[in-house]
C-alpha cells in the first residue's frame, strides 16, 4: 500500500457516522440480547416465578434473545465492518454517508419492532424468522439500502484489485436479501402448504446462521489476520477453494435427519454437512500458514487475539456442525441442547468475538478518538472467552447426556430433563459472564459516541463564537 496517511485518515473518517450508528445500535442490542438470554435461562431455575405475564416465559424470551443477538448485533456489526473493509481495500472514501446512516437507523427500528412483536405474541413461530411482517419489512428494506450502498462503493473503488475478503463479503451482501425475501414471502406472506414451510425455514436458518455469519466473519478474519500477523494471506488459492466449497456445501444443508419430509432432503443435507470438512481443512491451513510463526504484532488481549480466537471458534463450531450430521452422533444429539450449543459457538464465539476485534480496531481510527477504557478491552476479551466456553461446554456435554437418556426408553422422560438441570445452571454462569463482557463492550462504544457528540458540540460552539470575535476586532 503506497497511499499516504492523510488518504487513509480520510477513508476512515468517511465511514465515521455510519459506523457509529451501526455499532452503537449493535452494542445496545447485544446487551439487550444477553440480558434476555440470561432471563430465559433463569426460567429453568424458577419456572414458577414467570407465570403471570406472557413475556416472561421461555417461549418468548429465548427467541427474542436469539434474534436480538443475530439481527440486533451480528448483522449491523458485520455490515459496518464490511463497509469499512470495502473503503480501505478499495482505497476509496465512502460516498453519500447519509444513506447508510438512515438505513442503519431503519434497521435498528426494525429490530425494535420485531422484538416487541415477539413479546406481544406476533411471532411467526419459525426459528430465526420470528419477527412479524412490520419488523421484517423494515429489516429487508434497510438491508437493501445498506447492501446496495456497500456494493456501489465496492464497484466504484479506485484500487480495482479483488481480495479474498471481497469475495466473502460480496457473497454475503448478496445472500441475505435472497434468503430473507424468499423465506418471508413463502412462510409469512403467502404461506406454502404443510411441511414445505418447515423445510424453507430450515434452509433459511442455516443460510443465515451458518453461511452468512461464516462468510462475513471469515471475510473479516482474512482481512485482519494478514494485517496483524504481517504476512500476506496464505494463500489466495486456498482462500478461493475454501470460498467455493463453503458456499456450495454450506448453503445446501439444514434439514435435520429424521424430519417428517421426503428422505432425500435430510440425506442431501447430511451429505453436504459432511462435505463441509473440505472447506474447514482449507481454512485451517490458511489460518496456520498465515498466523503461526509470523513476526507481526503481538496479541495482548486486543483485536488480534479476538480475531484469532474467533477463527478457532469457527473451526470448532464447524466441526460440531459436521459431527451432528454423522448418523451415529446425530441420533444422539438430535432434539438436545447440543444444537443450541453449536449455534451459540457460531454466533457468539466465532462471529461476535471476531466483530469485537474488528470494531476495537476500526472505531478509534474512524472517529479519531481513543477508547476511554482501553484496559477494559482485555477484560472484556477474557470474560467473553470464559463465558462462551462455559456456555458451550455445559450445553454440549449436557446435550450428549440428555441424548443418551432420551434414546433409552427405560429412562423416564422427566429424568432426561432433570439430568439437564445441573448443566443448565452452569450455562447460566456462562451467560452471566457474557452479559458482563457485553456491558464492557457497550460501555467503551457508548463513551466514544458521547465523546464524539461532545466534540461536535464543541466544534459547533467554536464555530458559532469565532466569527463574532473577528467582527468585534474589526469594529
Amino acid at each position, binding site marked *: 500500500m503506497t497511499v499516504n496517511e492523510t488518504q487513509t485518515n480520510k477513508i476512515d473518517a468517511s465511514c465515521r457516522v455510519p459506523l457509529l450508528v451501526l455499532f452503537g445500535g449493535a452494542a445496545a442490542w447485544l446487551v439487550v440480547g444477553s440480558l434476555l438470554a440470561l432471563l430465559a435461562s433463569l426460567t429453568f431455575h424458577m419456572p414458577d416465578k414467570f407465570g403471570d405475564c406472557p413475556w416472561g*416465559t421461555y417461549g418468548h424470551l429465548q427467541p427474542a434473545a436469539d434474534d436480538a443477538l443475530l439481527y440486533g448485533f451480528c448483522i449491523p456489526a458485520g455490515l459496518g465492518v464490511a463497509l469499512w473493509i470495502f473503503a480501505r481495500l478499495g482505497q476509496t472514501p465512502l460516498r453519500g454517508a447519509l444513506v447508510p446512516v438512515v438505513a442503519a437507523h431503519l434497521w435498528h427500528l426494525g429490530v425494535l419492532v420485531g422484538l416487541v412483536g415477539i413479546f406481544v405474541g406476533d411471532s411467526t413461530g419459525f426459528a430465526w424468522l420470528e419477527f412479524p411482517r412490520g419488523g421484517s419489512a423494515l429489516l429487508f428494506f434497510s438491508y437493501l439500502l445498506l447492501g446496495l450502498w456497500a456494493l456501489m462503493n465496492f464497484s466504484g473503488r479506485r484500487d480495482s484489485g479483488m481480495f479474498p475478503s471481497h469475495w466473502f463479503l460480496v457473497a454475503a451482501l448478496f445472500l441475505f436479501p435472497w434468503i430473507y425475501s424468499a423465506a418471508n414471502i413463502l412462510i409469512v406472506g403467502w404461506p406454502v402448504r404443510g411441511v414445505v414451510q418447515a423445510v424453507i425455514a430450515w434452509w433459511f436458518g442455516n443460510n443465515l446462521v451458518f453461511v452468512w455469519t461464516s462468510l462475513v466473519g471469515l471475510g473479516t478474519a482474512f482481512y485482519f489476520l494478514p494485517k496483524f500477523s504481517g504476512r500476506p494471506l496464505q494463500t489466495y488459492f486456498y482462500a478461493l477453494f475454501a470460498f467455493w466449497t463453503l458456499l456450495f456445501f454450506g448453503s445446501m444443508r439444514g434439514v435435520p435427519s429424521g424430519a417428517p419430509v421426503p428422505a432425500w432432503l435430510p440425506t442431501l443435507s447430511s451429505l453436504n454437512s459432511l462435505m463441509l470438512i473440505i472447506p474447514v481443512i482449507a481454512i485451517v491451513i490458511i489460518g496456520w500458514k498465515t498466523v503461526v510463526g509470523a513476526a507481526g504484532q503481538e496479541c495482548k488481549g486486543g483485536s488480534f487475539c479476538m480475531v484469532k480466537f474467533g477463527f478457532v471458534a469457527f473451526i470448532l463450531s464447524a466441526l460440531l456442525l459436521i459431527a451432528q450430521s454423522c448418523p451415529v452422533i446425530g441420533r444422539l444429539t438430535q*432434539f438436545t441442547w447440543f444444537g443450541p450449543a453449536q449455534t451459540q459457538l457460531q454466533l457468539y464465539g466465532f462471529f461476535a468475538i471476531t466483530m469485537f476485534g474488528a470494531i476495537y480496531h476500526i472505531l478509534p481510527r474512524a472517529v479519531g478518538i481513543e477508547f476511554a477504557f482501553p484496559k477494559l478491552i482485555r477484560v472484556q476479551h477474557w470474560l467473553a472467552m470464559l463465558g462462551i466456553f462455559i456456555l458451550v461446554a455445559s450445553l454440549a456435554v449436557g446435550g450428549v447426556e440428555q441424548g443418551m437418556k432420551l434414546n433409552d426408553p427405560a429412562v423416564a422422560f422427566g429424568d432426561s430433563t432433570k439430568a439437564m438441570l445441573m448443566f443448565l445452571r452452569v450455562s447460566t454462569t456462562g451467560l452471566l459472564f457474557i452479559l458482563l463482557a457485553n456491558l464492557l463492550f457497550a460501555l467503551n462504544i457508548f463513551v466514544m459516541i458521547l465523546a464524539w457528540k461532545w466534540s461536535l458540540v464543541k466544534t459547533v460552539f467554536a464555530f458559532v463564537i469565532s466569527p463574532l470575535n473577528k467582527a468585534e476586532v474589526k469594529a
Partner: protein
Amino acid sequence: MKNGFVIFLAAFAMIFTSWSAFVLGPQLQLGREKQVPVLNSTEVYPRSRHGEANQGLQVYRANGCAACHTEQVQQDGVACEVVLSSAGKNPAAISNLLATLNLRGLSQADAQAVSDKIAAGGGKVETHIVAVGPDIARGWGLRHSVAEDFLYDNVVQLGSLRIGPDLAGVGTRLPDANWQLLHLYAPKSVVKDSLMPPFRYLFETRKIGDAPSADALNLPQGFTPPAGYEVVPKPEAKELVAYLLSLHADVPLYDAPFTPVVVAKP
C-alpha cells in the same frame, strides 16, 4: 473487474442451486399434496381441524411452545409381532409352545417361522407390523411423523428441542381436557417434577358470582385460589387445549405402515 464479475456469477449460481434444491424442489414435490388414503380403510387422512383447534395452533405459535416441544416422532424401523388369535383345540399345548417362543421384535422371516410353528400346533395367529424406536416405546406415537400429518397446519410447528416431551400424539396420550387445563395453569399440580412454566396468564382468577362457574378448574390442594375465588380458563387456554387434543398422528399410511390394533366392541 473481470474477476469480480466471474465471482458474482458463480456465487449467484450457487445460491440459485441451493434455492432450487431446498425451496423450489420441496414445493414442487409437496406443495400440491392432497389427502391420502389410510391403509386398509376407506378413510382419508388428514382431516382438517375444527375452528377452535385451529385458533389454538395460533396460541401455540404466539407463546413459542415450539421452543421446548417437538411435534415429530422418530422411529428406527419396523418389526413384526406375532399375535395369537385363536388357541385352537389344544390351548394348553399352545400355551406351553408360546412360552418358549419370542413373539416380539421379529424380522419378517422369523415371524413366518414362528407363525408356522404355532400353526403346526393347531393355533391361529396374526402377524402385526409395529414401529420400533425409543419414541414409540415411550408411547409418544404409533409411527414416525410424516409430511401428511402437517398438511393442514398453518403454521407448521415441528420444533427442534425436547425440553418437554414430544406432542405429536398428545391428543391420544392425554385426551382429558381438564387434565390439560390443570397442567397449563399449574404444571406441578399434575406432573410433580415439571419444568414447564405455569401459564397462569391464560386463566382468570375471579370472585365467585352467584354460583361457581361450570368452567372453574378443580385444583388440588396447594394450588387453589383464595377462598371465594375461582380460576377459569380464558378463551385462549380453551383453544390451546382444543389444539393439543386434536394432535393425534395415529393412522397407518403408505409411507408409515403399522397394523392398528382394533379393540373388539363388547
